[in-house]
């Protein structure tokens, strides 16, 4: 379809009018902006803060505040450019004051001038919205803490471990803020659940690291659990026992005079054991206090590799003559 020449001319004329209108509107807007930016305003601006001049030997025990809100006065131009190119503020920790324990505080208003100097010229700090900054300060410490196993072992029938399972290393060096270090007395291992164990054990097991103590570094994050497992057999000895707490000059007759010590021992250690490796004692005072008419034998010495020791009899009748 052909457009008539007259209509085209009218359209161009209308477009031109629109452009002129837009141009005037833009000038008006620019004028309005410039007028407004040249006026003074007061606003709240949030600044990132960096802490400097921390007293020697002190470190932050927990993360300190990272932002500081200031009420600032300045021309729109200054505030606008400050907003675009905001720099972090340095807070001087030299005058940090002690409260108690690890608690310290700082009054930022005391540093108002220093903070003012860090702002763009022409901007004025009217107010710091937080009147006190609180910190936890202390030393960086390190210590060794023992590792506790979390073992659930079930041996195959007739098998056992001659010695306690070993954790290698058995202690871990922890380093970090003392407030966090003080909260650790030991570290626990992940649960190690083994069934029907009949041969030597060697497993790498992870430590359970406390999630809330996030600033601590650990010398190891896992340890090795090792143990020697072997076939066990039963052994027994008939041994005499001693009686403690007898009155002076008392003459005691016991029935029996010896006790049988029955124990489980690994085959590799069976021939190393002698009756002298065991010691059994009774306490007359305890029996008298509890009004028992018998003595209770207690095993006070045994080789470390011997397991499940039983004493027969576990009650010893006695006659006493003063």
């Amino acid at each position, binding site marked *: 379809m052909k457009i008539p020449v007259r209509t085209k001319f009218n359209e161009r004329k209308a477009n031109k009018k629109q452009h002129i209108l837009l141009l005037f509107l833009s000038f008006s807007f620019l004028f309005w902006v410039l007028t407004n930016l040249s006026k003074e305003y007061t606003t709240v601006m949030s600044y990132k803060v960096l802490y400097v001049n921390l007293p020697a030997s002190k470190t932050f025990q927990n993360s300190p505040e990272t932002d500081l809100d200031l009420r600032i006065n300045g021309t729109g131009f200054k505030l606008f450019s400050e907003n675009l190119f905001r720099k972090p503020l340095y807070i001087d920790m030299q005058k940090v004051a002690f409260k108690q324990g690890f608690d310290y505080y700082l009054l930022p208003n005391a540093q108002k001038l220093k903070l003012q100097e860090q702002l763009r010229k022409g901007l004025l700090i009217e107010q710091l919205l937080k009147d006190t900054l609180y910190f936890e300060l202390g030393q960086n410490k390190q210590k060794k803490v023992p590792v506790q196993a979390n073992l659930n072992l079930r041996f195959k*029938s*007739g098998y056992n471990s001659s010695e306690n399972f070993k954790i290698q290393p058995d202690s871990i060096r922890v380093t970090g803020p003392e407030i966090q270090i003080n909260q650790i007395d030991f570290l626990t291992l992940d649960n190690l659940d083994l069934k029907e164990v009949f041969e030597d054990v060697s497993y790498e097991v992870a430590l359970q690291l406390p999630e809330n103590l996030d600033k601590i570094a650990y010398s190891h994050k896992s340890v090795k659990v090792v143990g020697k497992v072997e076939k066990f*057999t039963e052994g027994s000895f008939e041994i005499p026992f001693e009686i403690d707490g007898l009155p002076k000059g008392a003459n005691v007759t016991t029935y*029996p005079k010896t006790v049988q010590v029955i124990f489980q021992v690994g085959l590799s250690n069976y021939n190393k054991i002698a009756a002298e490796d065991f010691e059994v004692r009774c306490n007359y005072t305890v029996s008298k206090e509890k009004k028992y008419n018998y003595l209770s034998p207690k095993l006070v010495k045994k080789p470390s590799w011997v397991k499940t020791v039983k004493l027969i009899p576990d009650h010893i*009748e006695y*006659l006493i003559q003063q």
Partner: protein
Amino acid sequence: MRVIGLTGGIGSGKSTVLYMFQDLGAAVYMTDKVAKRILETSEKVRAEIISLLGDSAYTKTLPNRKFIADIVFYNPSKLKALNAIVHPEVVKDFKVFLQSQNAPYVIYESALLFEKGGKKYCDEVVLVTAPTALKIERIQKRDQASEDEILARMNNQMTDSEKIPLADHVLENTTLESLQKQVMSLHQLFVKAP
């Protein structure tokens, strides 16, 4: 050698009497202890018990006492068969034991001396008795068992009144002092007798 049978119900103080005789120089033979050793060490007994009660009667190295006890407690015929396996081995062991002794006499201790026919190996029998209440008190202290459990165990044995006519000597265990005196007089009797 003179063999003195020693028996008594549960909690009567039979073991204490045994220790008293041992103190006085008697050789002692404890059938329960020997039976336990035989159960643990004899391959023949082990094979026969497994054949009677099944593989679970033994763990790899030792008898499964709880399993065995649970079966025979409710099954008298199995108990009889078990005794028929173990008892002849105990008798054999006792004969060997006798040959190696030179004590004035031997005490043959068995809780079920009359019930299991052990009397025939003894020249005389000593029975230890005690009042039922005292027996229960002793067992409660020793085994931490309830009165009902103790009575159930007692009911599985002959009563003292059934045993007394079968025994040659009866020791009444009320206090340790009186028991010691009674044992001493019996000892003198056994030592003197031909």
